[in-house]
Every structure is written in structure tokens, then in C-alpha cells.
């Protein structure tokens, strides 16, 4: 009983703090504009309406934005995790000349603040003719995903016992074969945690998606929502909040199923 109290009371505190904005999103989604502004109890829905949800799904291109975001997030996640995995392996195991320098550069690369450096980045994007191409967001997002993923995987791979590889090497396996057949299966938890991290960051990105895409068909959820539902000083609160909630769904599904792997993967990489 006391133990339960010790768990559930603090848990309730965290629950309120962390979930209150989501409760607000949920309430706003189903409230009419009038009730949002004038209500005896903001925590209750007196006259519920589904119109915000249906408007969002039918009157706007939300499904398209959703699909775009999903595509970009999945693709940039796959690319970043792959690139980081082989880079981490090279840094940790192959110890080629300069590997230390490379790993330092990868960490230093993290210091780029995007809020203004999108201007110089844009020059390159234009020269490459990547402007307004949805897939271009994939390598662009990789710039802020690869450093973290590489770090995470370096930590993870470090803790895989060398004996496994040495045994394989005695059997005549090449480095590439070891990379794919021996290390890869063991590294899966680490890869999943890197993937979850990447997916989340890509899913939330705003500035690059705003400035580097221009056609309506290439908008992501964040950009699409703000560009269509913020009309001057009038915000379509119900639809914005409905979209925020629906936008969270895929990530929460991913988390629900993979959170244990994520934790396991991270703990593999931080083990002494």
C-alpha cells in the first residue's frame, strides 16, 4: 500500500505536468469555438462537436501532409541509421588512420544552429536543384540525425564483445561479412533506438520544411497546419489541436511497441 502510494503519487504529478497540454488538445478538438471562449468549466465538453476533425480530414490536405511527413521521416530515419551504423563501425572497429579526427568532426558538426544557417544551406540546395523536392528533405534531415545516431551506435558497438568477430575472422569472414552477418543482428536494439530518435526529430522539424519546400503538395504536417489553419489573427484552434493529436499517433504507436528496445538499446550503449 505504502509502496503503491510512493509510486502513484509522484507518477500522478508527472502525468499532470506532461499530459496536461494533450488533455487541452483533446478538449479543444471537440469543443465548438464558442464553448472554447465561454465555458463554466474549461475541463469539460458541454456541447461536443466532431466538425473540427472532419473538417481537418476533408477540407484540408491533411492526409497528404501526413503521408509526406511519414515518407520523409521514415526515409531520413533509414538513411541516417544506415549511414551512422557503418560510420560507427568504421570508427570503432577498423581504427583506420584519422578515425579519431573523424569522430571529433562528427560531434563538432552538431553545433550548427539552423534558425539562420538555412540561408547558406539554401544556396547549396538551389545549386543541386533540390529545391521543392520532397525527397531532398531526407538528406537535409540526415545532417542533424547522423551525429547523434553515430554517437549512440559507437557507444553500442563498443560493448559488443570482440570475441564474436575474432571467431568469425578465424573462419575467414571478411570485414563486410562481419558487419552484416555478425554485428548487425546483435546491434538491432541499438539501431532501433537510433531509429526512434531520428523518427521523432524528423517528425517535428519545421524550419527546413517551411523554407525548402514550396508546393502545397510537398508540405509536412507542421507546415501545412500552420499555413492553412492560422488565418491572420484567427486561429482554427479545433482543427490545429485535432491535427496535433493525430500527428502524435504514429510516433506514440512506435513508442508503445518499441520503447523497451529503445531503453535496451540505449542501455547497451551507456554500459560501462
Amino acid at each position, binding site marked *: 500500500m505504502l509502496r503503491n502510494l510512493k509510486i502513484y503519487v509522484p507518477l500522478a504529478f508527472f502525468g499532470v505536468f506532461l499530459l496536461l497540454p494533450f488533455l487541452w488538445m483533446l478538449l479543444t478538438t471537440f469543443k465548438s469555438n464558442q464553448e472554447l471562449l465561454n465555458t463554466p468549466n474549461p475541463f469539460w465538453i458541454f456541447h461536443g462537436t466532431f466538425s473540427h476533425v472532419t473538417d481537418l480530414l476533408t477540407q484540408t490536405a491533411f492526409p497528404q501532409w501526413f503521408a509526406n511527413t511519414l515518407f520523409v521521416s521514415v526515409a531520413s530515419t533509414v538513411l541516417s541509421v544506415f549511414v551512422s551504423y557503418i560510420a560507427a563501425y568504421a570508427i570503432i572497429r577498423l581504427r583506420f588512420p584519422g578515425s579519431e579526427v573523424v569522430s571529433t568532426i562528427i560531434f563538432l558538426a552538431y553545433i550548427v544552429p539552423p534558425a539562420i544557417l538555412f540561408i547558406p544551406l539554401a544556396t547549396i540546395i538551389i545549386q543541386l536543384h533540390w529545391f521543392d523536392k520532397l525527397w531532398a528533405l531526407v538528406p537535409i534531415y540526415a545532417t542533424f540525425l547522423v551525429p547523434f545516431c553515430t554517437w549512440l551506435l559507437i557507444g553500442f558497438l563498443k560493448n559488443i564483445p570482440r570475441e564474436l568477430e575474432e571467431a568469425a575472422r578465424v573462419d575467414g569472414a571478411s570485414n563486410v561479412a562481419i558487419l552484416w552477418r555478425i554485428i548487425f543482428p546483435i546491434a538491432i536494439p541499438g539501431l532501433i533506438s537510433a531509429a526512434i530518435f531520428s523518427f521523432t526529430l524528423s517528425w517535428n522539424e519545421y524550419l527546413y520544411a517551411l523554407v525548402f519546400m514550396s508546393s502545397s503538395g510537398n508540405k509536412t504536417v507542421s507546415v501545412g497546419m500552420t499555413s492553412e489553419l492560422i488565418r*491572420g*489573427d*484567427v486561429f482554427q484552434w479545433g482543427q490545429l489541436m485535432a491535427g496535433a493529436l493525430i500527428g502524435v499517433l504514429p510516433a506514440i504507436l512506435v513508442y508503445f511497441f518499441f520503447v523497451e528496445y529503445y531503453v535496451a538499446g540505449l542501455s547497451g550503449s551507456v554500459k560501462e
Partner: protein
Amino acid sequence: MKHLDRREFLATSAAGIGAAALAGSFPALASAADAPSFRPEKDAKLDLLRWTAFVPSDQTIWDENTKKFTAATGVPVSIQSLAWGDIAPKAALAAQVGSGPDIIMGWNDDPFVYPDKLVDMTDLVDNMGKAHGGWYDNARSYCYDQDVKRWVSLPVGCTGNAVNYRKSWVKEAGFGEFPKDLDGMLKLARVLKKNGHPTGFALGHAVGDANSWTHWILWAYGGKQANPDNSIAINSAETVNALEYARQLSETMIEGVAGWDDSSNNKAFAGGRIGMTMNGISIWYNGKKDTPDIFPDFANVTPPMGPVKTHTVSNNFTSAFVFKYSKFPNAAKEYLRFMLDKPQADRWVTEMKGYVTPALKAYAELPIWTSDPNITPYRDALASAKYDGYNGKPGKAAAQALDEYVIVDMFADVCVNKMAAKDAVRKAETRLQTIYKRA
């Protein structure tokens, strides 16, 4: 001059345009004095970036008119829209990298930030002005660049500002009608506050709402940011008087205005929390739909006058500019000409019900402006308007001062941070001097 070929185009396209005009809602008003056309380049196609329509009818009619344009000229136009605050980074990027939409509809001083990158609009502006009763002064202030000495943008209009109030509460306060001058308004505001209906004017970094009312008060007292030669003129007894007035007005305001953004006063007014504010027509427009029970009590009035004895309104001005990198500048001009020409614009302006006040004077005669007394103040928004950086030279420096909220922060320093008016003025003066020297 590349555009000499527009006359011949006029002959060939007049038939098409005339037909389109007749299809419009106001065939009677489709005058013969339409501005001359430009001949679109061969195989032209256009990309337009505009701010997301504030009202659905804006988008519907704009898109319909665009279709008519494509039918008449064969030039396809693809339209992208972004939230109004997100236009600036996109336009800056386009100017910087030399690639992007052919036409961008931006806000306030945007075109002055990169005038060299923009197509000369002088001929179009002249023609349109001649055909449609001339331009309001604001058009020149926001679109004619004095450094490069040409029109860098085509004025479209503004989302005008007026004072919004609750009729019954003003009556309850013992006022037969809304006061005509600022002193009267302050008296009313005090009674409203006492009756539990405070006023609410934004003092946070709200692009529209905070700038609009602070500039109105500043100008109403004769305060000026700069002189015509761009020397700083903010440090004056007039500015101090304006700040003293604002301090007294702020005592009648609801809690938290310093944290308000552009949507806050809409919420507070529609939620019945405040009895007076300044805003575009959006509060009134959306009240009909969102809060029908109290909507009949909403009213709008032209902002009262201060000691200068003229109206001094500050609006959000929008204009359309064409980038030099565009391969189809003539098509772009023709498109803009077509869209703001009477047959199209009449319907566009009418259906928006006062949301956008056109910069061309002829459109003030549309019946929509007098169809409801609450729309009329928005018709007059441009007639008495001053511009950002008044009475200095419109341009980069004024644009930057606006972006840095120098005037808003000066008012907030007095009203919220309780700084002495003289100190707030001096602080603003220093900031302005830095900005004007740099620009």
C-alpha cells in the same frame, strides 16, 4: 523599355477580358477605363506565393479570378499560401538565392529590404492609379523605394484597423455614442473598467495588434519616429504626451496584455472579457459565426483623434512584388493588373466584406462598405493612415525598426515596466539611432 508591346496586346485581348468582365458580378461597374494590359511572354507560367486567406471567400474568389486569367491569357498560375508570418523568410530566401516564386504578396516594408531584386512596377502602378481613381498615400509609402527611385511593389491594400467595442457596455457607461477624441475615449475606458469591462490593447511582440494601436496613439499626439531626412525625431514632448496617455489607458486594461499575441484580443473580445480593443475586422467578421449570441452587441468605429485633429490609423499593408529572376515579368504584371482590375477586384473586395481595404481609391465606392455601419470604418482605414517610420523616409531603416518592435517596446516600457516616459523615449531614441545608422 520592354513593355511597349502592351498596347498591341490590349487590342488582341480586349475581347477576352471584356467577356470575363461581363461574367463578373458587377458588369455595370466594369469601366472602359481599365488599365492597359501587358503581353505575357510566350509559354509563360507563374508561381505566386501569398499569405493564407484570412477569410474563406478571399481564397475562393481569388482562385476563381485566377482561373479566369488563365482562360483569358493561357498563362497557368500556381498559387501557394503560407501563414502571414512565414512569408518574410520565404521572400528573404528567394531574394537571397535568386530563385523562388515569380510573385510574392508580402507585408508592410518587406519590399524595401531587397529593392534591387525586384522588378520595376512604375508603369503598372501609374496605369492602375489612372484607371481606378488614384492611390492612397500609404501605397507610395510602402511600395515606392526612394533609394532606387522606383515603385518596387504593386500596392494591394491593407487589413485595416478600427476600434472595436461593445455597444451595450458603452451605453451602460453613460455614453450615447463612442467618443470622437482620445480624451473622451479615456473617460469611457475608465468607466468601462469600473463596470468590470476592461479594455485590452496588445503590448507583447504582436506584429499587427501591438504595432497598430501604439502607432495610432503616437501619431495622434504628433509624435514622429524620424524626420524626412531620416534624422531621429522620437525624442519630443509629443511622444512623451502620447506615452503618458498610454500609461493612463493601460490602467484600464485587462491583466496580461504584455504577453498578448495577435490572436489574444480576438479571444478576449469574443469571450466577453474586454469591452474595447483595436483590431482588423476579424473580430466582428468571426463573431457572427462563432459567438452569435453576443455578436449583435459588437461595433466598430474609426479610431478617435488626438491633439493633431486628424485620424492617424496604422494598418497592416500588403503589396505584391515580382522578382527580377522571374522569366515572365510581363505575365506577372498582367496577372496582377487583371486581379486588381475592376471586374475581378469588385467581386473579390465585396466578398471579403471589409477584410482587405484596397489601396486604389475607386474601390471605396463599392456598396459593401456602406452595407453595414460596422464595415464603414474599415473603408476609411487607408484614407487617414500614416506609415511605419513616419515622418521619416520609408525604407530599410523603418522596416528594421518595425521588426525590432522599437515603438511597441517603448510603450511597453512605460505601461508594463513602469519606466518614466522620458527614459523610455531616450531608450527608443538610442535604438533608432543605431538602426538608422546601420541601414
